[in-house]
Protein backbone atom coordinates (compact mmCIF):
# COMPACT_ATOMS: atom_id res chain seq x y z
CA UNK A 1 0.00 0.00 0.00
CA UNK A 2 1.24 3.43 -0.90
CA UNK A 3 0.21 5.07 2.32
CA UNK A 4 2.65 5.70 5.10
CA UNK A 5 0.38 7.38 7.59
CA UNK A 6 -3.31 7.44 8.36
CA UNK A 7 -4.06 3.97 7.09
CA UNK A 8 -7.40 3.27 8.64
CA UNK A 9 -9.62 0.27 8.40
CA UNK A 10 -13.07 0.57 9.89
CA UNK A 11 -14.34 -2.25 12.08
CA UNK A 12 -17.23 -4.23 10.66
CA UNK A 13 -20.49 -2.32 10.75
CA UNK A 14 -18.82 0.97 11.53
CA UNK A 15 -19.02 3.76 8.98
CA UNK A 16 -15.87 4.56 7.01
CA UNK A 17 -16.34 8.23 7.62
CA UNK A 18 -18.07 9.84 10.56
CA UNK A 19 -18.65 13.56 10.67
CA UNK A 20 -19.64 14.69 14.14
CA UNK A 21 -21.35 18.08 14.54
CA UNK A 22 -18.70 19.81 12.47
CA UNK A 23 -18.84 23.59 12.17
CA UNK A 24 -16.68 26.11 10.35
CA UNK A 25 -17.06 29.88 10.31
CA UNK A 26 -15.36 32.48 8.15
CA UNK A 27 -15.52 35.63 10.21
CA UNK A 28 -19.12 35.87 11.32
CA UNK A 29 -20.41 33.74 8.43
CA UNK A 30 -21.05 30.16 9.49
CA UNK A 31 -20.26 28.25 6.30
CA UNK A 32 -20.82 24.83 7.88
CA UNK A 33 -23.08 24.80 10.89
CA UNK A 34 -23.24 21.59 12.93
CA UNK A 35 -23.20 18.86 10.30
CA UNK A 36 -23.31 15.22 11.39
CA UNK A 37 -23.11 12.47 8.83
CA UNK A 38 -22.03 8.83 8.53
CA UNK A 39 -20.77 7.43 5.26
CA UNK A 40 -20.29 3.71 4.78
CA UNK A 41 -17.46 2.15 2.78
CA UNK A 42 -18.39 1.69 -0.87
CA UNK A 43 -21.04 4.39 -0.92
CA UNK A 44 -21.49 6.93 -3.69
CA UNK A 45 -22.59 9.91 -1.66
CA UNK A 46 -23.60 13.28 -3.07
CA UNK A 47 -23.56 16.58 -1.22
CA UNK A 48 -26.17 18.63 -2.98
CA UNK A 49 -27.02 22.26 -2.46
CA UNK A 50 -27.13 25.71 -4.02
CA UNK A 51 -23.90 27.70 -4.24
CA UNK A 52 -22.80 29.06 -0.88
CA UNK A 53 -24.52 26.33 1.13
CA UNK A 54 -21.25 25.08 2.60
CA UNK A 55 -20.88 21.85 0.66
CA UNK A 56 -17.49 22.73 -0.77
CA UNK A 57 -16.24 23.90 2.64
CA UNK A 58 -17.29 20.56 4.11
CA UNK A 59 -15.44 18.74 1.34
CA UNK A 60 -12.33 20.85 1.89
CA UNK A 61 -12.42 19.97 5.58
CA UNK A 62 -12.41 16.29 4.62
CA UNK A 63 -9.43 16.87 2.33
CA UNK A 64 -7.67 18.85 5.05
CA UNK A 65 -7.53 22.28 3.41
CA UNK A 66 -9.76 23.74 6.11
CA UNK A 67 -9.89 22.71 9.72
CA UNK A 68 -13.22 22.50 11.55
CA UNK A 69 -13.84 25.00 14.36
CA UNK A 70 -16.03 22.51 16.18
CA UNK A 71 -16.74 18.80 15.95
CA UNK A 72 -14.70 15.84 14.80
CA UNK A 73 -14.07 13.99 11.56
CA UNK A 74 -13.33 10.30 12.01
CA UNK A 75 -11.97 8.12 9.24
CA UNK A 76 -12.13 4.46 10.13
CA UNK A 77 -12.67 5.43 13.75
CA UNK A 78 -9.60 7.68 13.91
CA UNK A 79 -9.78 11.45 14.27
CA UNK A 80 -8.06 12.96 11.23
CA UNK A 81 -8.00 16.52 12.51
CA UNK A 82 -4.23 16.57 13.18
CA UNK A 83 -3.37 15.08 9.77
CA UNK A 84 -2.30 17.51 7.04
CA UNK A 85 -3.72 17.05 3.53
CA UNK A 86 -0.70 15.05 2.36
CA UNK A 87 -1.00 12.66 5.29
CA UNK A 88 -4.61 11.68 4.67
CA UNK A 89 -5.60 8.56 2.72
CA UNK A 90 -8.06 10.79 0.88
CA UNK A 91 -7.69 12.25 -2.58
CA UNK A 92 -9.63 14.97 -4.25
CA UNK A 93 -10.58 15.79 -7.79
CA UNK A 94 -10.70 19.54 -8.11
CA UNK A 95 -13.43 21.48 -9.82
CA UNK A 96 -11.09 23.03 -12.39
CA UNK A 97 -9.07 19.78 -12.37
CA UNK A 98 -5.91 21.62 -11.18
CA UNK A 99 -3.73 19.65 -13.57
CA UNK A 100 -0.08 20.61 -13.43
CA UNK A 101 0.44 22.51 -16.70
CA UNK A 102 4.17 21.86 -16.82
CA UNK A 103 3.81 18.09 -16.57
CA UNK A 104 2.66 15.55 -19.15
CA UNK A 105 -0.39 13.35 -18.66
CA UNK A 106 1.84 10.53 -17.48
CA UNK A 107 3.71 12.72 -14.99
CA UNK A 108 0.48 14.21 -13.71
CA UNK A 109 -0.86 10.74 -12.95
CA UNK A 110 2.47 9.58 -11.51
CA UNK A 111 2.85 12.68 -9.33
CA UNK A 112 1.19 11.24 -6.24
CA UNK A 113 2.88 7.86 -6.67
CA UNK A 114 6.35 9.40 -6.77
CA UNK A 115 5.62 11.23 -3.52
CA UNK A 116 4.64 7.92 -1.97
CA UNK A 117 8.11 6.53 -2.75
CA UNK A 118 6.78 3.78 -4.94
CA UNK A 119 9.30 1.75 -6.92
CA UNK A 120 9.89 2.96 -10.48
CA UNK A 121 8.53 -0.19 -12.10
CA UNK A 122 5.43 -0.17 -9.89
CA UNK A 123 4.75 3.45 -10.82
CA UNK A 124 4.93 2.61 -14.52
CA UNK A 125 2.52 -0.31 -14.05
CA UNK A 126 0.07 1.74 -12.00
CA UNK A 127 0.14 4.65 -14.46
CA UNK A 128 -0.51 2.31 -17.37
CA UNK A 129 -3.37 0.77 -15.41
CA UNK A 130 -4.88 4.21 -14.69
CA UNK A 131 -4.46 5.37 -18.28
CA UNK A 132 -6.32 2.27 -19.45
CA UNK A 133 -8.98 2.75 -16.77
CA UNK A 134 -9.90 6.23 -18.00
CA UNK A 135 -9.24 5.38 -21.66
CA UNK A 136 -6.44 7.84 -22.32
CA UNK A 137 -4.15 5.47 -24.21
CA UNK A 138 -1.87 7.28 -26.63
CA UNK A 139 -2.13 10.65 -24.89
CA UNK A 140 0.43 9.96 -22.14
CA UNK A 141 2.99 12.42 -23.47
CA UNK A 142 0.60 15.33 -24.02
CA UNK A 143 0.56 18.39 -21.82
CA UNK A 144 -2.77 19.42 -20.25
CA UNK A 145 -3.19 22.34 -22.65
CA UNK A 146 -3.14 19.91 -25.56
CA UNK A 147 -6.18 18.05 -24.24
CA UNK A 148 -9.91 18.60 -24.61
CA UNK A 149 -12.09 19.33 -21.59
CA UNK A 150 -13.27 15.75 -21.35
CA UNK A 151 -9.74 14.41 -21.57
CA UNK A 152 -8.54 16.76 -18.84
CA UNK A 153 -11.36 15.57 -16.66
CA UNK A 154 -10.16 11.99 -17.16
CA UNK A 155 -6.57 12.89 -16.31
CA UNK A 156 -7.74 14.55 -13.11
CA UNK A 157 -9.76 11.48 -12.22
CA UNK A 158 -6.88 9.11 -12.96
CA UNK A 159 -4.51 11.27 -10.92
CA UNK A 160 -6.84 11.25 -7.93
CA UNK A 161 -7.46 7.50 -8.19
CA UNK A 162 -3.83 6.52 -8.73
CA UNK A 163 -2.99 6.45 -5.04
CA UNK A 164 -5.98 4.19 -4.36
CA UNK A 165 -7.42 6.46 -1.69
CA UNK A 166 -9.87 5.15 0.88
CA UNK A 167 -12.09 8.05 0.04
CA UNK A 168 -12.31 10.01 -3.20
CA UNK A 169 -13.69 13.53 -3.06
CA UNK A 170 -15.05 15.02 -6.27
CA UNK A 171 -15.73 18.76 -6.33
CA UNK A 172 -18.22 19.48 -9.12
CA UNK A 173 -16.35 17.06 -11.37
CA UNK A 174 -18.60 17.46 -14.38
CA UNK A 175 -19.46 21.15 -14.19
CA UNK A 176 -17.08 22.11 -16.99
CA UNK A 177 -18.35 19.53 -19.48
CA UNK A 178 -21.14 20.02 -22.00
CA UNK A 179 -24.44 18.22 -21.48
CA UNK A 180 -23.91 15.19 -23.71
CA UNK A 181 -20.42 14.51 -22.39
CA UNK A 182 -21.64 15.06 -18.83
CA UNK A 183 -24.29 12.40 -19.18
CA UNK A 184 -21.93 9.78 -20.57
CA UNK A 185 -19.31 10.66 -17.95
CA UNK A 186 -21.89 10.24 -15.19
CA UNK A 187 -22.41 6.68 -16.31
CA UNK A 188 -18.68 6.03 -16.50
CA UNK A 189 -18.08 7.42 -13.01
CA UNK A 190 -20.80 5.17 -11.56
CA UNK A 191 -19.43 2.14 -13.36
CA UNK A 192 -15.91 2.96 -12.17
CA UNK A 193 -17.02 3.38 -8.58
CA UNK A 194 -18.82 0.05 -8.64
CA UNK A 195 -15.87 -1.74 -10.22
CA UNK A 196 -13.29 -0.31 -7.80
CA UNK A 197 -15.58 -0.59 -4.79
CA UNK A 198 -14.26 2.78 -3.64
CA UNK A 199 -16.10 5.33 -1.54
CA UNK A 200 -16.94 8.49 -3.49
CA UNK A 201 -18.20 11.77 -2.13
CA UNK A 202 -19.28 14.17 -4.82
CA UNK A 203 -20.21 17.81 -4.40
CA UNK A 204 -22.69 19.20 -6.88
CA UNK A 205 -25.33 21.87 -7.29
CA UNK A 206 -27.05 19.88 -10.03
CA UNK A 207 -29.86 17.84 -8.53
CA UNK A 208 -30.25 15.69 -11.63
CA UNK A 209 -26.58 14.76 -11.47
CA UNK A 210 -26.84 13.87 -7.80
CA UNK A 211 -29.99 11.79 -8.36
CA UNK A 212 -28.45 9.94 -11.30
CA UNK A 213 -25.17 8.99 -9.69
CA UNK A 214 -25.46 8.86 -5.94
CA UNK A 215 -26.78 6.03 -3.81
CA UNK A 216 -27.42 8.57 -1.07
CA UNK A 217 -27.77 12.33 -1.14
CA UNK A 218 -27.28 14.91 1.57
CA UNK A 219 -29.04 18.16 0.76
CA UNK A 220 -27.37 21.18 2.33
CA UNK A 221 -28.88 24.55 3.01
CA UNK A 222 -27.05 27.48 4.64
CA UNK A 223 -24.46 25.29 6.33
CA UNK A 224 -26.85 22.64 7.61
CA UNK A 225 -27.85 19.24 6.32
CA UNK A 226 -31.52 19.66 5.46
CA UNK A 227 -32.15 16.01 4.60
CA UNK A 228 -30.16 12.86 3.95
CA UNK A 229 -31.61 9.98 2.02
CA UNK A 230 -31.79 7.91 -1.12
CA UNK A 231 -32.71 9.85 -4.28
CA UNK A 232 -36.21 8.41 -4.28
CA UNK A 233 -36.76 9.38 -0.66
CA UNK A 234 -35.72 12.97 -1.33
CA UNK A 235 -37.94 13.22 -4.35
CA UNK A 236 -41.05 11.48 -3.09
CA UNK A 237 -40.84 12.28 0.62
CA UNK A 238 -39.12 15.63 0.97
CA UNK A 239 -38.99 16.81 4.54
CA UNK A 240 -39.62 20.46 3.84
CA UNK A 241 -41.03 22.77 1.27
CA UNK A 242 -37.54 24.04 0.42
CA UNK A 243 -36.24 20.56 -0.41
CA UNK A 244 -39.34 19.76 -2.45
CA UNK A 245 -38.74 22.86 -4.55
CA UNK A 246 -34.97 22.36 -4.81
CA UNK A 247 -35.19 18.74 -5.93
CA UNK A 248 -37.29 18.69 -9.09
CA UNK A 249 -40.44 20.64 -9.95
CA UNK A 250 -43.46 20.67 -7.71
CA UNK A 251 -46.91 22.24 -7.38
CA UNK A 252 -47.55 23.79 -3.98
CA UNK A 253 -50.85 24.92 -2.52
CA UNK A 254 -51.00 26.69 0.83
CA UNK A 255 -53.47 25.09 3.21
CA UNK A 256 -56.11 27.21 4.90
CA UNK A 257 -58.16 24.64 6.76
CA UNK A 258 -58.13 20.92 7.47
CA UNK A 259 -60.45 18.17 8.55
CA UNK A 260 -59.68 14.59 9.51
CA UNK A 261 -61.57 11.84 7.67
CA UNK A 262 -60.29 8.41 8.68
CA UNK A 263 -56.81 8.03 7.26
CA UNK A 264 -57.30 11.04 5.07
CA UNK A 265 -57.06 14.73 5.58
CA UNK A 266 -59.43 17.04 3.81
CA UNK A 267 -57.60 20.24 3.24
CA UNK A 268 -59.01 23.51 2.07
CA UNK A 269 -56.72 25.58 -0.13
CA UNK A 270 -57.25 28.99 -1.60
CA UNK A 271 -55.87 28.22 -5.05
CA UNK A 272 -57.01 24.66 -5.65
CA UNK A 273 -60.18 24.25 -3.63
CA UNK A 274 -60.56 21.22 -1.42
CA UNK A 275 -57.93 18.50 -1.67
CA UNK A 276 -57.93 15.07 -0.07
CA UNK A 277 -54.54 13.78 0.97
CA UNK A 278 -53.19 10.78 2.84
CA UNK A 279 -52.44 11.56 6.46
CA UNK A 280 -48.70 12.11 6.98
CA UNK A 281 -46.82 9.76 9.30
CA UNK A 282 -45.67 12.53 11.59
CA UNK A 283 -48.49 14.49 13.20
CA UNK A 284 -48.64 17.96 11.75
CA UNK A 285 -49.15 19.96 14.90
CA UNK A 286 -50.27 23.52 14.51
CA UNK A 287 -47.76 24.73 11.92
CA UNK A 288 -48.71 26.22 8.60
CA UNK A 289 -48.33 23.77 5.76
CA UNK A 290 -48.82 23.24 2.06
CA UNK A 291 -50.02 20.42 -0.13
CA UNK A 292 -47.43 19.40 -2.72
CA UNK A 293 -47.84 17.35 -5.86
CA UNK A 294 -45.20 16.52 -8.47
CA UNK A 295 -46.18 17.47 -12.05
CA UNK A 296 -45.82 13.93 -13.39
CA UNK A 297 -48.30 12.64 -10.79
CA UNK A 298 -51.01 14.88 -12.20
CA UNK A 299 -53.07 13.23 -14.92
CA UNK A 300 -54.95 15.21 -17.53
CA UNK A 301 -58.02 14.23 -19.48
CA UNK A 302 -60.67 15.94 -21.50
CA UNK A 303 -63.63 14.69 -19.47
CA UNK A 304 -62.19 13.52 -16.17
CA UNK A 305 -60.95 10.11 -15.04
CA UNK A 306 -62.35 7.14 -16.88
CA UNK A 307 -62.75 3.46 -16.09
CA UNK A 308 -61.84 1.97 -12.78
CA UNK A 309 -59.72 4.95 -11.81
CA UNK A 310 -62.89 6.93 -11.99
CA UNK A 311 -64.02 6.80 -8.43
CA UNK A 312 -62.11 6.19 -5.30
CA UNK A 313 -58.54 6.90 -6.45
CA UNK A 314 -59.30 10.13 -8.20
CA UNK A 315 -60.90 12.10 -5.49
CA UNK A 316 -58.94 15.21 -6.35
CA UNK A 317 -60.44 16.60 -9.55
CA UNK A 318 -59.61 20.07 -10.69
CA UNK A 319 -61.11 21.80 -13.71
CA UNK A 320 -59.16 24.30 -15.70
CA UNK A 321 -57.90 25.46 -19.08
CA UNK A 322 -54.46 24.95 -20.60
CA UNK A 323 -52.47 28.19 -20.16
CA UNK A 324 -49.23 27.25 -21.84
CA UNK A 325 -47.40 24.28 -23.22
CA UNK A 326 -43.74 23.41 -22.90
CA UNK A 327 -42.73 20.61 -25.27
CA UNK A 328 -39.56 18.87 -24.06
CA UNK A 329 -39.39 15.93 -26.46
CA UNK A 330 -39.93 13.00 -24.14
CA UNK A 331 -42.46 14.84 -22.05
CA UNK A 332 -44.69 17.84 -22.38
CA UNK A 333 -45.33 20.16 -19.45
CA UNK A 334 -48.75 21.81 -19.44
CA UNK A 335 -49.57 24.70 -17.19
CA UNK A 336 -53.21 24.56 -16.30
CA UNK A 337 -55.10 27.65 -15.11
CA UNK A 338 -57.48 26.21 -12.54
CA UNK A 339 -61.03 27.48 -12.27
CA UNK A 340 -60.32 27.94 -8.56
CA UNK A 341 -57.64 30.48 -9.43
CA UNK A 342 -54.32 28.64 -9.03
CA UNK A 343 -51.83 27.32 -11.54
CA UNK A 344 -51.07 23.62 -11.83
CA UNK A 345 -48.20 22.03 -13.71
CA UNK A 346 -48.78 18.65 -15.27
CA UNK A 347 -46.08 16.67 -17.01
CA UNK A 348 -47.28 14.16 -19.58
CA UNK A 349 -45.17 11.49 -21.28
CA UNK A 350 -45.39 11.68 -25.06
CA UNK A 351 -45.95 7.96 -25.51
CA UNK A 352 -47.35 8.30 -29.02
CA UNK A 353 -45.54 9.85 -31.93
CA UNK A 354 -48.66 11.43 -33.35
CA UNK A 355 -50.17 14.27 -31.37
CA UNK A 356 -53.70 12.88 -31.14
CA UNK A 357 -53.53 13.01 -27.33
CA UNK A 358 -52.00 16.46 -27.09
CA UNK A 359 -53.90 19.39 -25.70
CA UNK A 360 -53.93 22.87 -27.08
CA UNK A 361 -53.92 26.24 -25.38
CA UNK A 362 -57.28 27.37 -23.97
CA UNK A 363 -58.62 23.84 -24.12
CA UNK A 364 -60.69 22.82 -21.13
CA UNK A 365 -59.18 19.89 -19.19
CA UNK A 366 -59.73 17.96 -15.99
CA UNK A 367 -56.63 17.42 -13.85
CA UNK A 368 -56.77 14.64 -11.31
CA UNK A 369 -54.53 12.87 -8.85
CA UNK A 370 -54.79 10.43 -5.96
CA UNK A 371 -54.49 11.32 -2.26
CA UNK A 372 -51.37 9.12 -2.00
CA UNK A 373 -49.54 11.19 -4.61
CA UNK A 374 -49.81 14.30 -2.47
CA UNK A 375 -47.32 15.24 0.19
CA UNK A 376 -48.06 17.54 3.08
CA UNK A 377 -45.16 19.85 3.84
CA UNK A 378 -44.71 22.34 6.65
CA UNK A 379 -43.94 25.71 5.08
Amino acid at each position, binding site marked *: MARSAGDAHPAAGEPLLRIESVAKAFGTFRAVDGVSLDIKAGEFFALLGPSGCGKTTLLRMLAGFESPDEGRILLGGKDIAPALP*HERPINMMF*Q*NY*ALFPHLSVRDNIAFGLR*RANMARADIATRVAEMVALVKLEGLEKRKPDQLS*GGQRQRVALARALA*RRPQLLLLDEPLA*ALDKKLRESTQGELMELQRRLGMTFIIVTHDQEEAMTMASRIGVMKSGKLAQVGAPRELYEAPRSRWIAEFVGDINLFDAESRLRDGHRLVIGTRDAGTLVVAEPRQPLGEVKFSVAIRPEKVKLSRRGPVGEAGHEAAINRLDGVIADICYLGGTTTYRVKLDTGGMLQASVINSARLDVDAYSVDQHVVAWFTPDDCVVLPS
Partner: protein
Amino acid sequence: MRKVSRLSRFNVASLALGLAFLYLPILILVIYSFNASRLVTVWGGWSLRWYYEFFDDRAMIEASWMSLRVAVASATIATLIGTLAAVALSRGERFRGRTLFSGMLYAPLVMPEVITGLSLLLLFVALNAERGFWTVTIAHTTLTMCFVAVVVQSRLGSLDRSLEEAAMDLGCAPARAFLSVTLPLIAPAIVAGWMLAFTLSLDDLVIASFTTGPGSATLPIRIYSEVRLGVKPEINAICTLVIALIAVVIVLASLASKLSSSRGESAAPL
Protein backbone atom coordinates in the same frame (compact mmCIF):
# COMPACT_ATOMS: atom_id res chain seq x y z
CA MET B 1 -12.90 44.25 -29.01
CA ARG B 2 -13.06 46.88 -31.68
CA LYS B 3 -12.09 45.72 -35.10
CA VAL B 4 -8.61 46.84 -36.04
CA SER B 5 -9.13 49.57 -38.58
CA ARG B 6 -6.53 50.90 -40.97
CA LEU B 7 -4.42 53.66 -39.55
CA SER B 8 -5.38 57.11 -40.68
CA ARG B 9 -2.80 59.48 -42.08
CA PHE B 10 -2.74 61.40 -38.81
CA ASN B 11 -2.06 58.20 -36.86
CA VAL B 12 0.80 57.25 -39.17
CA ALA B 13 2.32 60.69 -38.81
CA SER B 14 2.08 60.78 -35.04
CA LEU B 15 3.42 57.25 -34.77
CA ALA B 16 6.39 58.13 -36.99
CA LEU B 17 7.07 61.31 -35.02
CA GLY B 18 6.89 59.49 -31.71
CA LEU B 19 9.20 56.70 -32.81
CA ALA B 20 11.60 59.19 -34.34
CA PHE B 21 11.65 61.20 -31.13
CA LEU B 22 12.47 58.06 -29.14
CA TYR B 23 14.86 56.25 -31.41
CA LEU B 24 16.45 58.79 -33.79
CA PRO B 25 19.00 60.02 -31.20
CA ILE B 26 19.96 56.43 -30.42
CA LEU B 27 20.24 55.62 -34.09
CA ILE B 28 22.50 58.63 -34.66
CA LEU B 29 24.63 57.59 -31.71
CA VAL B 30 24.99 54.07 -33.11
CA ILE B 31 25.89 55.35 -36.57
CA TYR B 32 28.44 57.83 -35.24
CA SER B 33 30.08 55.07 -33.20
CA PHE B 34 31.32 53.73 -36.53
CA ASN B 35 32.65 57.15 -37.53
CA ALA B 36 36.30 57.27 -38.60
CA SER B 37 36.65 60.96 -37.79
CA ARG B 38 38.08 62.25 -34.51
CA LEU B 39 35.35 64.90 -34.35
CA VAL B 40 32.05 63.68 -33.02
CA THR B 41 29.88 65.73 -35.33
CA VAL B 42 31.80 65.33 -38.58
CA TRP B 43 31.31 62.21 -40.62
CA GLY B 44 34.57 60.72 -41.80
CA GLY B 45 33.56 57.35 -43.21
CA TRP B 46 32.95 53.93 -41.64
CA SER B 47 35.43 52.47 -39.18
CA LEU B 48 35.72 50.28 -36.11
CA ARG B 49 38.47 52.50 -34.76
CA TRP B 50 36.65 53.63 -31.62
CA TYR B 51 35.77 50.10 -30.67
CA TYR B 52 39.49 49.19 -30.72
CA GLU B 53 40.16 52.32 -28.74
CA PHE B 54 37.66 51.28 -26.11
CA PHE B 55 39.18 47.82 -25.71
CA ASP B 56 42.56 49.48 -25.16
CA ASP B 57 41.16 51.89 -22.56
CA ARG B 58 42.00 50.21 -19.24
CA ALA B 59 39.92 52.54 -17.09
CA MET B 60 36.84 52.02 -19.27
CA ILE B 61 37.28 48.25 -19.31
CA GLU B 62 37.66 48.23 -15.53
CA ALA B 63 34.52 50.32 -15.11
CA SER B 64 32.61 47.98 -17.45
CA TRP B 65 33.82 44.96 -15.50
CA MET B 66 32.75 46.63 -12.25
CA SER B 67 29.32 47.42 -13.68
CA LEU B 68 28.82 43.86 -14.90
CA ARG B 69 29.83 42.40 -11.55
CA VAL B 70 27.56 44.77 -9.64
CA ALA B 71 24.68 44.06 -12.04
CA VAL B 72 25.01 40.28 -11.77
CA ALA B 73 25.47 40.30 -8.00
CA SER B 74 22.70 42.77 -7.21
CA ALA B 75 20.26 41.17 -9.68
CA THR B 76 20.85 37.77 -8.14
CA ILE B 77 20.39 38.94 -4.56
CA ALA B 78 17.39 41.08 -5.54
CA THR B 79 15.77 38.13 -7.31
CA LEU B 80 16.20 35.96 -4.25
CA ILE B 81 14.81 38.51 -1.80
CA GLY B 82 12.18 39.84 -4.19
CA THR B 83 10.82 36.37 -4.92
CA LEU B 84 10.64 35.55 -1.22
CA ALA B 85 8.82 38.84 -0.56
CA ALA B 86 6.35 38.13 -3.36
CA VAL B 87 5.67 34.63 -2.06
CA ALA B 88 5.21 35.88 1.49
CA LEU B 89 2.82 38.61 0.39
CA SER B 90 0.66 36.56 -1.94
CA ARG B 91 0.84 33.10 -0.37
CA GLY B 92 1.48 33.58 3.32
CA GLU B 93 -1.15 33.74 6.01
CA ARG B 94 -2.86 37.07 6.32
CA PHE B 95 -0.86 38.98 8.89
CA ARG B 96 -1.28 42.36 10.46
CA GLY B 97 0.02 45.17 8.29
CA ARG B 98 0.17 43.05 5.13
CA THR B 99 -1.33 45.86 3.08
CA LEU B 100 1.22 48.26 4.53
CA PHE B 101 4.02 45.88 3.58
CA SER B 102 2.73 45.55 0.02
CA GLY B 103 2.58 49.31 -0.23
CA MET B 104 6.08 49.73 1.15
CA LEU B 105 7.34 47.24 -1.39
CA TYR B 106 6.23 49.56 -4.16
CA ALA B 107 7.71 52.68 -2.60
CA PRO B 108 11.18 52.40 -4.20
CA LEU B 109 9.46 52.27 -7.60
CA VAL B 110 8.27 55.85 -7.23
CA MET B 111 10.93 57.22 -4.90
CA PRO B 112 13.25 59.77 -6.60
CA GLU B 113 16.62 58.12 -7.08
CA VAL B 114 18.42 61.07 -5.55
CA ILE B 115 16.61 60.45 -2.27
CA THR B 116 17.29 56.71 -2.34
CA GLY B 117 20.94 57.36 -3.12
CA LEU B 118 21.38 60.05 -0.51
CA SER B 119 19.70 58.07 2.24
CA LEU B 120 21.83 55.03 1.47
CA LEU B 121 24.95 57.17 1.47
CA LEU B 122 24.04 58.50 4.93
CA LEU B 123 23.46 54.93 6.11
CA PHE B 124 26.81 53.71 4.81
CA VAL B 125 28.59 56.67 6.33
CA ALA B 126 26.87 56.08 9.66
CA LEU B 127 27.85 52.41 9.55
CA ASN B 128 31.34 53.44 8.58
CA ALA B 129 31.21 51.02 5.67
CA GLU B 130 33.99 51.25 3.12
CA ARG B 131 32.34 52.39 -0.08
CA GLY B 132 32.98 50.34 -3.19
CA PHE B 133 31.66 47.22 -4.88
CA TRP B 134 29.52 45.97 -1.99
CA THR B 135 27.89 49.29 -1.13
CA VAL B 136 26.83 49.80 -4.76
CA THR B 137 25.61 46.23 -4.94
CA ILE B 138 23.52 46.63 -1.79
CA ALA B 139 22.12 49.94 -3.03
CA HIS B 140 21.15 48.41 -6.37
CA THR B 141 19.61 45.43 -4.61
CA THR B 142 17.29 47.66 -2.59
CA LEU B 143 16.23 49.44 -5.76
CA THR B 144 15.71 46.40 -7.98
CA MET B 145 14.24 43.87 -5.53
CA CYS B 146 10.90 45.66 -5.58
CA PHE B 147 10.76 45.36 -9.37
CA VAL B 148 11.40 41.63 -9.06
CA ALA B 149 8.78 41.33 -6.31
CA VAL B 150 6.18 43.10 -8.46
CA VAL B 151 6.83 40.86 -11.47
CA VAL B 152 6.79 37.64 -9.45
CA GLN B 153 3.79 38.70 -7.37
CA SER B 154 1.67 39.35 -10.44
CA ARG B 155 2.56 35.92 -11.76
CA LEU B 156 1.70 34.29 -8.43
CA GLY B 157 -1.56 36.18 -8.35
CA SER B 158 -2.62 34.74 -11.70
CA LEU B 159 -1.62 31.23 -10.70
CA ASP B 160 -4.44 28.91 -9.65
CA ARG B 161 -4.08 28.21 -5.94
CA SER B 162 -5.67 24.82 -6.31
CA LEU B 163 -2.53 23.64 -8.12
CA GLU B 164 -0.64 23.81 -4.85
CA GLU B 165 -3.55 22.21 -3.04
CA ALA B 166 -3.60 19.40 -5.58
CA ALA B 167 0.10 18.82 -4.96
CA MET B 168 -0.52 18.66 -1.21
CA ASP B 169 -3.48 16.36 -1.77
CA LEU B 170 -1.19 14.05 -3.73
CA GLY B 171 1.28 13.73 -0.90
CA CYS B 172 3.49 16.83 -0.92
CA ALA B 173 4.24 18.65 2.31
CA PRO B 174 3.58 22.39 1.78
CA ALA B 175 7.24 23.27 1.10
CA ARG B 176 7.56 20.38 -1.31
CA ALA B 177 4.38 21.43 -3.09
CA PHE B 178 5.86 24.88 -3.61
CA LEU B 179 9.12 23.51 -4.98
CA SER B 180 7.65 20.93 -7.32
CA VAL B 181 4.65 22.84 -8.65
CA THR B 182 4.69 26.56 -7.93
CA LEU B 183 8.38 27.21 -8.54
CA PRO B 184 8.51 25.67 -12.03
CA LEU B 185 5.44 27.68 -12.97
CA ILE B 186 6.74 31.03 -11.76
CA ALA B 187 10.29 30.38 -13.01
CA PRO B 188 9.84 32.45 -16.20
CA ALA B 189 8.68 35.40 -14.10
CA ILE B 190 11.70 35.00 -11.83
CA VAL B 191 14.01 34.96 -14.86
CA ALA B 192 12.29 38.03 -16.27
CA GLY B 193 12.66 39.73 -12.89
CA TRP B 194 16.38 38.93 -12.81
CA MET B 195 16.91 40.42 -16.23
CA LEU B 196 14.95 43.53 -15.34
CA ALA B 197 17.08 43.95 -12.21
CA PHE B 198 20.23 43.40 -14.26
CA THR B 199 19.44 46.15 -16.79
CA LEU B 200 18.30 48.56 -14.08
CA SER B 201 21.56 48.10 -12.23
CA LEU B 202 23.63 48.35 -15.39
CA ASP B 203 22.35 51.75 -16.43
CA ASP B 204 21.96 53.38 -13.01
CA LEU B 205 24.05 56.51 -12.54
CA VAL B 206 22.49 58.42 -9.67
CA ILE B 207 22.41 55.82 -6.92
CA ALA B 208 25.79 54.41 -7.95
CA SER B 209 27.46 57.80 -7.82
CA PHE B 210 26.13 58.34 -4.29
CA THR B 211 27.18 54.98 -2.95
CA THR B 212 30.41 54.14 -4.72
CA GLY B 213 33.88 54.99 -3.48
CA PRO B 214 37.10 56.12 -5.10
CA GLY B 215 38.62 53.67 -7.54
CA SER B 216 35.44 51.68 -8.09
CA ALA B 217 33.50 53.70 -10.64
CA THR B 218 30.78 51.93 -12.61
CA LEU B 219 30.52 52.36 -16.35
CA PRO B 220 27.79 55.05 -16.31
CA ILE B 221 29.83 57.05 -13.79
CA ARG B 222 32.97 56.70 -15.92
CA ILE B 223 31.12 57.73 -19.09
CA TYR B 224 29.54 60.69 -17.34
CA SER B 225 32.87 61.98 -16.10
CA GLU B 226 34.46 61.54 -19.55
CA VAL B 227 31.63 63.39 -21.25
CA ARG B 228 32.05 66.34 -18.94
CA LEU B 229 35.49 66.84 -20.50
CA GLY B 230 34.01 66.68 -24.00
CA VAL B 231 32.43 63.86 -25.94
CA LYS B 232 34.93 61.50 -27.52
CA PRO B 233 33.71 59.20 -30.32
CA GLU B 234 34.82 56.32 -28.11
CA ILE B 235 31.85 57.05 -25.83
CA ASN B 236 29.54 56.39 -28.76
CA ALA B 237 31.13 52.99 -29.23
CA ILE B 238 30.72 52.11 -25.54
CA CYS B 239 27.11 53.27 -25.51
CA THR B 240 26.38 51.21 -28.60
CA LEU B 241 27.74 48.13 -26.85
CA VAL B 242 25.65 48.85 -23.75
CA ILE B 243 22.54 49.37 -25.89
CA ALA B 244 23.17 46.06 -27.64
CA LEU B 245 23.59 44.23 -24.34
CA ILE B 246 20.45 45.75 -22.85
CA ALA B 247 18.45 45.07 -26.00
CA VAL B 248 19.42 41.39 -25.86
CA VAL B 249 18.52 41.14 -22.17
CA ILE B 250 15.17 42.89 -22.69
CA VAL B 251 14.24 40.63 -25.58
CA LEU B 252 15.12 37.59 -23.45
CA ALA B 253 13.11 38.97 -20.55
CA SER B 254 10.03 39.56 -22.67
CA LEU B 255 10.37 36.06 -24.14
CA ALA B 256 10.56 34.69 -20.62
CA SER B 257 7.46 36.53 -19.47
CA LYS B 258 5.62 35.51 -22.63
CA LEU B 259 6.45 31.90 -21.85
CA SER B 260 5.25 32.53 -18.32
CA SER B 261 1.88 33.86 -19.39
CA SER B 262 1.31 31.16 -22.00
CA ARG B 263 1.83 28.60 -19.27
CA GLY B 264 -0.59 30.56 -17.18
CA GLU B 265 -3.30 30.15 -19.79
CA SER B 266 -3.09 26.42 -19.63
CA ALA B 267 -3.18 26.59 -15.85
CA ALA B 268 -6.36 28.64 -15.89
CA PRO B 269 -9.70 26.88 -15.52
CA LEU B 270 -11.74 26.20 -18.63
